[in-house]
């Protein structure tokens, strides 16, 4: 496959699709501009610093046109009582699978907004910037027609979590693009459980461009479950900004799909804004998970707590590439970053690149990365108590995950995740009680 092929196919798909997308002339122009910027810069490649571990050939093999919709099979509900659902099917808001939001929460269907008020949509959805990591967001912008905007009013604190589900029904191979915009007003509080579940049989790529903003003193707990089916892939580009005193907690669990590439660029723009980014990926077979984050501390007393754990078996491949930038204005900033990784087979691969870039003296920063196999001393201890090598290995792998899962603030979900990760172990109930 020559390097130009994916771009040619994108252009062809765009030419075919664009005339049918809603939004009128202003959106036609915006989409064309996005495509032109993309064509000028090209798609990310292996030689790009932040993209070197991704299997670009496999990603480029997904057909860029929309995936034909199929039937939606049943998917298991999350154990979250009272959740308000927001559901996207193949990137499209699906009212039949969505609930009316609580007071103070507004959920807007982007496709409807594009038809009703394209100019408002232009103002609400930021055009992707020129960051080299934003190129898949440009693709999403070029094809943008669907998605959802979630707004939480100032001071609102809805009692129930919002569960945002991305379903892919794909009956035939293709790509679905979606835009997502989440904004919390000052002092608002929300728990958002976001879940990707590709149910269809065909190879579909989801391309999500998302933006997030937290007003002063707002708090967002954001659980992200990447549970795509075996044939599905996902690329996502998140751009986030936090105002003073806001808190963002992200819990990302990547356990499905053939490829996941996740980009997050987060600016701690206001004083004492803080974020906690916890991630856990588990790749087996030929699967790949590639998590990339850039957090910038732009203001005083900002805090980052980041921990990513990865497990790779078989020929699974994982990458964690996390950069924390502490700018001169960020006096008294505190940043910790850790990446711990477990290789469970000789052919598995994990690349960990924690990076701290500090431009002021008045900071507290720690970072570290490990990639290794199971601890010999722990294995021997368990075997000396009569557990066979396989059981001891499974138990230690569980322990590696449990520690992180145990920090999920939603008890029901925590128990479900623990049970899932402990699935292969006996006496699960006893185990799950541990964290």
């Amino acid at each position: 496959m020559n390097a130009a092929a994916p771009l040619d196919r994108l252009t062809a798909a765009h030419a075919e699709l664009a005339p049918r997308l809603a939004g009128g002339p202003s959106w036609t122009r915006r989409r064309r501009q996005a495509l032109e910027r993309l064509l000028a810069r090209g798609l990310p490649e292996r030689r790009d610093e932040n993209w070197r571990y991704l299997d670009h050939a496999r990603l480029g093999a997904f057909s860029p046109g929309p995936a034909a919709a199929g039937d939606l099979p049943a998917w298991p509900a999350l154990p979250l009582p009272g959740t308000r659902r927001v559901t996207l099917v193949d990137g499209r808001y699906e009212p039949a699978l969505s609930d009316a939001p609580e007071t103070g929460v507004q959920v807007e269907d982007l496709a409807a907004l594009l038809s009703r008020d394209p100019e408002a949509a232009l103002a609400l959805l930021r055009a992707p910037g020129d960051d080299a990591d934003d190129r898949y967001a440009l693709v999403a912008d070029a094809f943008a027609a669907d998605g959802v905007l979630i707004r939480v009013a100032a001071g609102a604190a809805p009692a129930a979590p919002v569960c945002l589900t991305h379903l892919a029904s794909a009956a035939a191979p293709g790509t679905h693009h979606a835009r997502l915009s989440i904004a919390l007003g000052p002092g608002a509080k929300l728990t958002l459980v976001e879940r990707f579940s590709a149910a269809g049989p065909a190879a579909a790529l989801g391309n999500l461009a998302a933006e997030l903003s937290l007003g002063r003193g707002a708090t967002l707990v954001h659980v992200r479950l990447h549970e795509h089916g075996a044939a599905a892939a996902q690329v996502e580009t998140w751009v986030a900004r936090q105002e003073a005193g806001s808190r963002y907690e992200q819990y990302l669990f990547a356990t499905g799909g053939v490829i996941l590439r996740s980009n997050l660029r987060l600016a701690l723009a206001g004083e004492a804004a803080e974020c906690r980014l916890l991630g856990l990926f588990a790749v087996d077979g030929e699967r790949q998970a590639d998590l990339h984050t850039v957090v910038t501390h732009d203001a005083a007393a900002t805090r980052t707590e980041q921990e990513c754990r990865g497990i790779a078996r078989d020929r699974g491949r994982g990458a964690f590439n996390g950069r924390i930038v502490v700018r001169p204005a960020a006096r008294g900033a505190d940043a910790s970053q850790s990446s711990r990784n477990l290789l469970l087979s000789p052919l598995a691969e994990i690349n960990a690149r924690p990076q701290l870039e500090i431009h002021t003296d008045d900071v507290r920063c720690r970072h570290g990365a490990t990639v290794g196999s199971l601890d010999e001393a722990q294995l021997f201890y368990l075997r000396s108590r009569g557990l066979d090598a396989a059981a001891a290995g499974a138990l230690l792998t569980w322990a590696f995950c449990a520690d992180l899962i145990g920090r999920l603030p939603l008890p029901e979900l925590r128990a479900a995740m623990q049970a899932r990760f402990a699935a292969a172990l006996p006496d699960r109930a006893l185990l799950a009680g541990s964290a």
Partner: protein
Amino acid sequence: MSAASGMILDVRDLCVQAGGRRILDGLSLEVRAGEVHAIMGPNGSGKSTLTGVLAGRPGLEVVSGRATYLGRDLLAMAPEERAREGLFLAFQYPVEIPGVNNVYLLKAALNALRRHRGLPELDAFEFLNLVRGRLAAMQMDEGLLNRGVNEGFSGGEKKRNEILQMSLLEPTLALLDETDSGLDIDALKVVAAGVNAQRGPGRAIVLVTHYQRLLEHVVPDRVHVLAGGRIVRSGGRELALELERRGYDWLRAETAA
């Protein structure tokens, strides 16, 4: 040699190296049912290597010699097989395993043993009753059951936890690797009581220790001095007292001569 003769452990001319260095150098030891042996020796004499090689610790290379346990070739058995056949090692430095709670490990260990012996697994109720009884005997807080294995335990709690596991698994051969080190006198008494409760006609205990302090509470049938990778002297209780009085240097001088 068979179990019928009362022989539990028979080590002959065992030579072991680790990292290219010879650590055990022709060690022989016989332990019979009902006996408590104490193995004493200075730091670096090979005490932990001995318990490690008997329990199957990786990284130790048996160069020559053999070890027979209940008539079987011990060194050919996987660590878990040794455990299921009733060999127990109380670690000098019990390993912390965050994320696996203590009660889970206790149950998994006990059930592995029971399955191996063709016994039904204990149900949750029977198991907890059993554990609670043993916990009380070890004067351990029930809260420790739901903590990660040895996670954040004090030195004394870790050692008690080892003895708790031992009391639950009721081994045929218990190897205690410096279980007394780092214990205050009250903890030492509790641990000693736990060990004494394990004494019985069908079982044997090997205590590895640097000091004879533990031996005031667990009185051994035989005392051996390990130096330079082999047993250089064996005797009764009085040998431990002599070591306490005279230290190890006189033995070194004597064996070097």
